[in-house]
């Protein structure tokens, strides 16, 4: 049986991993923008203080929207909404899911059966539909939308964590530790979980992109952030009503696009780092 990856983390020169570097650079740039948004945004994101629907210009690089707000400032401000919520909800989903999965994989038997059927149940629905239903039941609003995404996002972590705990739990190094007198709980924390954390981290990074898309999707459908809040998804939704003023929807759309792309690049590179096939040595 092949056990999990040997984590030979050797990143090598940056130019060998252009996608990782690009992903990291874009993600870091967005984090900096989110932190310093009040300093970076030239105008208020809510003030309707300019002529409406102006095309991009030096004064308003992304133009103004139909209510006379500066789109550039709104896109910058929007990063403070989308990014922290996405990070928090992915962290929450990963924690809940991994705990459930680890419990199922560790105790096996009945606990495993019950928990995994629950996971199957959630998986039976398309995520966006289920998120919509949950968000609609909970009521409109950004907080409820985030909660709805946690509900659809945790099961994939549960499944991955369970599989890994089962696999690593049967590995020879865990058996060796057990033969040396370690209890099964002790090996769980010392040998099993540290080997599960890496792949979960990869999944979470890739999932950040999903969460941002879902969140924007819900906002686009009117179930997430409510006007006048500057949230990228709802800004795109507004933009679609005014196709002749393309800049209103395009720039927040580009913001979503770059963030999603960045986290996908990052996740893929992390996966390579943890993957035994790409991390192997030069051997005969």
């Amino acid at each position: 049986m092949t056990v999990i990856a040997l984590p030979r983390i050797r990143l090598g020169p940056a130019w060998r991993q252009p996608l990782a570097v690009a992903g990291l650079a874009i993600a870091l740039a967005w984090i900096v923008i989110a932190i310093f948004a009040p300093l970076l945004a030239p105008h208020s994101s809510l003030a309707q203080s300019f002529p409406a629907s102006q095309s991009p210009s030096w004064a308003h690089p992304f133009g103004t929207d139909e209510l006379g707000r500066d789109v550039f400032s709104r896109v910058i401000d929007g990063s403070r909404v989308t990014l922290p919520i996405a990070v928090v909800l992915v962290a929450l989903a990963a924690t809940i899911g991994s705990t459930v999965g680890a419990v199922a994989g560790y105790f096996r038997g009945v606990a495993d059966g019950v928990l995994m059927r629950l996971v199957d149940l959630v998986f039976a629905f398309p995520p966006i539909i289920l998120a919509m239903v949950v968000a609609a039941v909970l009521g409109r609003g950004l907080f409820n939308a985030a909660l709805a995404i946690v509900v659809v996002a945790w099961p994939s972590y549960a499944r991955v964590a369970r599989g890994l705990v089962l696999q690593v739990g049967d590995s020879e190094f865990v058996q060796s530790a057990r033969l040396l007198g370690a209890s099964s709980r002790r090996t769980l924390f010392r040998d099993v979980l540290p080997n599960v954390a890496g792949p979960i981290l990869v999944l979470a990074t890739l999932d950040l992109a999903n969460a941002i898309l879902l969140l924007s999707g819900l906002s686009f459908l009117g179930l997430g952030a409510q006007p006048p809040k500057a949230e990228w998804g709802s800004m795109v939704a507004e933009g679609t009503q005014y196709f002749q003023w393309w800049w209103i929807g395009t720039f927040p759309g580009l913001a979503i696009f770059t963030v999603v792309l960045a986290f996908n690049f990052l996740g893929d590179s992390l996966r390579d780092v943890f993957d035994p096939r790409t991390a192997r040595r030069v051997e005969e």
Partner: protein
Amino acid sequence: MSTLAVEGLRVRLPTPAGEVTVVDGVDYEVQPAEVFGIAGESGSGKTISMLALLGLLPDGSSVEGSARFGGDDLLTMPRRRLRAVSGRDIAMVFQDPFTSLHPMLSVGRQLTEHVRLHLGLDRAAAEKRAVELLADVRIPDPQTALRRFPHQFSGGMRQRIAIAIALACRPRLLIADEPTTALDVTVQAGILRLLDRLRREHELAVVLITHDLGVLSSVADRVSVFYAGRIVESGGREDVLRRPRHPYTRALLDALPHPESEREQDLVAIEGAPPTPGAIPPGCAFHPRCAHLVENCRHVVPPLLGAGEGRRLACHVDPFKP
């Protein structure tokens, strides 16, 4: 004329830590109906040197030298032609037949597709040829075997099937890379006997790569010993294995359990471990482990020179000169 003549083969592989020389100037020739044995421990470059001939190295690798096969140079041949040649005239058998056989296709399908593609036979003729091939490698009841799948056979039988597929297009050269390493000795013996018969009957030149000197001793006609990407000694089987001249060859032989030796004696282990590509010692790569070294060994790479009776040796000292 030799079937394969390799000259000055040098291979560099890309690694995260930069380019690493894995094969560093290797020459040899293989004659028809001859088993040419390449011995070496893991990391000695023996497998990479073969993959280089068939253009099977990862992207970014660089290969120098020449490899004459028939009238062509395998190393400069266009990729398309190399693929055609290496599918038809050169065959390869690997350590694990499970990875070289397609798990979802029946044995018959894998055999017949191969011969139809390369020899242009029709369905009936291809099937007849497939049955012949399976009978040739001593698969019991070849007709039924055609309809079965690789997982329904044992490791030894799978290796026989892999050999049948390799022989399907009547190749002139067979490269067998550790073909018996994954098998039990009882099964290994059968495969070695099979290889020995096939090369006589089919006039097949065989390059046999293995870490097991016992395997080489039973079927190889000539032997080359690899160490850290170079040949350190080569010559006739009896010469090299009975009267080894390179300290490494001798140490390797001494490390083996000998059936006729006193069993109470400890095995004579070689100190240290073989170097890894990228961290090869200067001078003679074996010098840190060698009991016979002189100052020269630390600085100057000993060239592989003729040592009489068709032998070649790369050693400054030649401590076992007769």
